[in-house]
Structures are given as C-alpha cells and as structure tokens.
C-alpha cells in the first residue's frame, strides 16, 4: 500500500505543477482580457483611474497586481473550488463546467466503451481468422476507409443525410424538447436516442485504430510458444481465444484507455458543435473565441485533474489485469 500512497503523492505533485504551469502560461501570454476591457472603457472616454476601477469591479481582476500574486490567488481559488467568474456569461466558471461535464463524461464513456469493445472484438477476429483472406481483406478495407475519414467530415455527412435529409435519427440537441431532464426513463431514452448519430460517428471513426492495434498485438501473441503449447495440451479453442489471446493482447492497450478518455473530453469539439450537444469541448470552443480566460483556465484545470486521476487509476489497477505489473507481492 506504501507504493499506492507514493503514487498518489506523486500524482498530486504532478497535478500542482501542471496547473501552475498552464496558469503561468496563460497569465503571462499577451491578450489580457482585463486589458482589452480597459481599452474599451478608455475609448468610451472614461478617465483612466475610473476605467481601471470599473474593470476591477467588473471581473474582480487587477492588471496592476503582480503575476505571482494572481497565480497564488488563482491556485488558492482552485483548491477551494472557486474558478472565477466567466467574462462572457457572467456566472461562476465552476457552475459552467459543472453543467458541461456530465454530458462530456456521458458521451465519451458511452462511445469509448463501445469503440473499445467492438475494436477489440474485430481486432482479435482479424488476427484469429487470418487464414480467411476474404474476411480479412474485406474487413481491413472497410476499416481503412473509416480510418482515413476525419470524424468531423463523417459527422457532417451523417448530419446532412441520415439526419436532415432522410430524417432517420435525431441530429440536433442532446434530447427532445418534450421531456423533463432528470432521472426518468423518458429522459434517458431520449438522450440515448439523440446521441445515436454522434456516437456512431465517433465509434466508426475510432474503431479502426483500436482494431488494427489489437490485431497487430494478437498476431504477435498467436506466434508465442504458450499458444502452441496450449493447443498441444488440447485446451478448447474458446479458452485459447479468451484467456490466452485476448487477455494477453489487451494488456498494452489498457493504459491507453484512460489517456484516450481524458483526451476525448475536449477532443469532441467538432462533434459537439455539429450536433449542437453540450459538453466541455463546445464550452472551450465558444469561450476561446470570446477570450474568456477564466473559463478556459478552468477547463484546463479540470482536464489536468482528469488526466492525473486517469493515470493514477491506470497505475493502481494495472496490476489486476497484468500480474507482471504487480508490486509488493510475491
């Protein structure tokens, strides 16, 4: 357990460092939103001193304050859950993010779990039935096609055809207007129904990467001595397929899952804006355009937290699936 504790402390340090560095970069970079606002007031003919006071009052932000002081004050705010106030929306950043984050988490975990499960199955099948050239070639061709289409193009195509033109699936918004958000069956069903199209786009475009990776891994595993020996012992092929090939093939990708998850939390900007879905991605996209720094920093802080937690989670649980990575046990 000592090891887990050390890992946790290390993660905390990494989090602190990453948050500090990203705040420093944003604070030190040109284009201070307060300065922009200040210039605006000055152009309206307001005297300088009064304009500065107005800005300070407006966003609780002082351009004269030294950078290290801003940084410390912000860090203190982060630790206490206060991420500042959005310049464009005039509401606390924490509240904005809290509204967006469940949608992002839902969308990413829904589509990523489908992607990983299908990707692993297809990859294993590709390696296992490699002697069936027709099967391998046709599946590989389809995968290669989807692999080369960027997800925002597929999103646009699906939006226009499956959505707008043929009206097969809902293509705008996270749920229909006639349901009340909350933990009721109609709402959940409506959300799942509305997310079908975006999820399809996401799954179709990201399956090939997983499938090819798994297939390459499984092809290597198939040549291992322990596979030949398992056959010699007369183990049934289902046992060889699951416990021998699949289990050993997914080990290297396990570490990828948490990283991809956090990356996707903001990596879905295009899909979210195409299908008018709420989420961290669309929040970041709209606020970046308006130079709403408090929100941007807030989103980054949340992402860094997610990445650090994801890595910590992977580290702590890897031993359960791969005994070779187990520590402190003999």
């Amino acid at each position: 357990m000592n090891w887990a504790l050390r890992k946790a402390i290390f993660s905390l340090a990494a989090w602190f460092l990453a948050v500090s560095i990203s705040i420093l970069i944003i604070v030190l970079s040109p284009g201070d939103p307060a300065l922009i606002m200040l210039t605006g007031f000055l152009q309206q003919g307001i005297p300088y001193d009064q304009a500065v006071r107005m800005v300070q009052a407006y966003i609780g932000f002082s351009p004269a304050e030294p950078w290290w002081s801003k940084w410390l004050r912000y860090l203190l705010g982060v630790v206490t859950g206060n991420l500042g106030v959005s310049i464009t929306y005039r509401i606390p950043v924490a509240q904005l993010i809290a509204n967006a984050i469940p949608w992002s988490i839902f969308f990413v975990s829904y589509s990523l779990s489908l992607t990983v499960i299908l990707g692993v199955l297809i990859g294993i099948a590709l390696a296992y039935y490699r002697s069936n050239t027709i099967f391998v070639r046709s599946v590989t061709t389809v995968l290669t096609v989807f692999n080369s289409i960027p997800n925002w193009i597929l999103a646009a195509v699906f939006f226009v055809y499956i959505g707008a033109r043929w009206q097969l699936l809902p293509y705008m918004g996270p749920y229909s207007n006639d349901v009340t958000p909350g933990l009721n069956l109609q709402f959940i069903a409506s959300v799942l129904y509305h997310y079908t199209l975006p999820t399809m786009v996401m799954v179709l475009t990201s399956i090939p990467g997983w499938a090819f990776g798994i297939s390459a891994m499984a092809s290597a595993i198939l040549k291992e001595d322990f596979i030949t020996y398992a056959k010699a012992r007369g183990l049934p092929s289902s046992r060889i397929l699951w416990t021998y090939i699949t289990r050993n093939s997914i080990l290297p990708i396990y570490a990828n899952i948490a990283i991809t998850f956090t990356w996707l939390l903001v990596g879905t900007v295009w899909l979210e804006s195409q299908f008018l879905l709420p989420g961290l991605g669309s929040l970041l996209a709209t606020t970046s355009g308006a130079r709403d720094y408090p929100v941007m920093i807030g989103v980054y802080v949340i992402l860094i937290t997610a990445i650090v937690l994801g890595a910590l989670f992977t580290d702590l649980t890897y031993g359960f699936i791969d005994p070779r990575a187990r520590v402190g046990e003999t």
Partner: protein
Amino acid sequence: MSEILLGVKNLNVSYFNTKVVSNIYFNIFKGETYALVGESGCGKSTIASSIMRTLPEIAHIDADSQILYYASPHPVDLLKVPEYEFSNNFRWREIAMVPQGALNSLNPTIRIKDHFMETARAHNLDKKEALEKAWKLLEAVKLDPHRVLSLYPIEMSGGMKQRVLIALALLLNPKLLILDEPTTALDVLTQREILIMLNELKAKYGLTYMLISHDIALVADIADRVAIIYAGRIVEESNVENIFYNPKHPYTIGLLKAVLKLGEFREPETIPGSTPDYRKLPPGCKFHPRCPFAMDICRREEPPFIEVEKDHFVSCWLYAKR
C-alpha cells in the same frame, strides 16, 4: 525392451510443396529413451508435432504416412483417428510433451494452478482429483506445491518453469513423453538437476521418452537409442554406444567432432557448408555437398538404409555392398 509403443512408418511432411520430413521410419520401445538428433531446422520438431497433431494448417502429411500407437490391443494410426477421438483418448492421456522454449510456454496472465486446472478440465478430469495430482507431481519435480501453485510464470526461474512443464505433462499419466529440447536455455547446473529428475520420473511412472535435441552431451547421458537426422531424413540409427563409439555416417562423425570433451584443447571441428535449403535439395544423398567422402554415386542416387551391424543402420553409400 521388446514391446513397441510407437511406430512411425514412412512419414512425409511438406510445407506448401516443400518436403521437410521425408520417409521417416522408426520404432520406440516401451520404457526406452529414443533420441532424435540433428541441427536446427532438420525436421525433428516437425516429427514431434506430427505425433502431437499440432502441425500448422499449411503443413501436409502424405496419405500413406503412418504413426502407429500400440497402447490398445490393436495399434491405432494416430494420423487417421478423428480429431475428437485423438483429443479424448490420446492427447495428454497417452502422449504428452514438454515443449521447446520453457521460458515462454506458460500464459503470463494466469497462475500455475490455472494451467493445471484448465488442462484437467479440457480432459474431463475431476477438479479435486486434478489438484491432488498436481500437488503430487509438483512434489515429484521437487517444487513446493503450496507456493508454486499460486505463482504466476513471471515469478519463477527458468528451471522452475521447466519443472512445472514436466509436472504438467504428467497430469494425465501419459505413457509416452515427448521432450523437445528439455534443457535448452537452462544453466548447466539446472540442466543436470533436470536430467537426474527426468531419470527418476521415468522409473517412478514407467514412462517412455522421445527426446528431441541437438545437445550431444544430453543425448549421450540419457538416450538408449539415437536417430541422427539430416535434411528431414534419418541418416543413422543405433543404440547410444554405437553412435558415440562407432559412428558410421560422415555426418554423425562430423557432429561428434564438433563437440569437445572436458579437458580437451583443440579447435572444435565444424562440418563445412551449411544446412541445406529445402526448396532445392541436391539430388542423390542430401549430405553429399558437405561430405568429405562423396563419390559419384552419392551425387546421383539416394543411399539405401543399410544394417552395418546388428541394430545399427546407416544411410550411406560407403557401406553399401557393390
């Protein structure tokens, strides 16, 4: 040593259209250790895989090849019995193997106990019975069952893995054990321990060994009879004394010269040339391009298998009566 346990008759195996094992005949008698010796790639593992029926799909065995197993009152041709029958009655129950590459033959993600249990389940052995048997066998190979059963392969040394594989091979009381390079990749002291143990196990469980090796010293130690294989053919076969003290085939002589005795200080001799390319084997005797005694006839015709003395067979024109 008179009862035959396994008889291989006219075994021919090819990969695509390339013949890698050609016209192999040999008998293994009950209770003996029969060794197949040859360089890497000479076809000895292919012979073992033919017996275990683990050849890759691209391999083709000629229809008139036979591998007769003499356990039941009537010999059974292992190449002809249906797969399920082979699995139920022969695989691991009559014939088991200790695979080549001990270090990598166990699934890294499951415990040693699971290896025993899955093997037992595949052969419908009762769980409790299997665990007891595994316990006894691990003791017989001088491991601590209590500890080893809960270990993962990564937590064991090469010697321990080799012992586990030997124990695993004996789980269903087989009569014939195929040992494919059982001591390769082990250090010399561990090799010795494994050899001593193999001899003990053989006596204790009444086993017959088919040993596959390129390690002359190991063969000299534990084999009763030896077949020297070159280019997928048996070139010489006899008891171990004849092979080592009275070798006849130029290839056997060359192999033995390549091994140094303890305290001998000389450059080990090698056989000139390299292992043949199976896609373009020379006509006549396959060894003639590397043979110092090659004659005209060697380049034209394959030599017959000649009994030069009692139970000593050589496939070489030097010994043919002309």
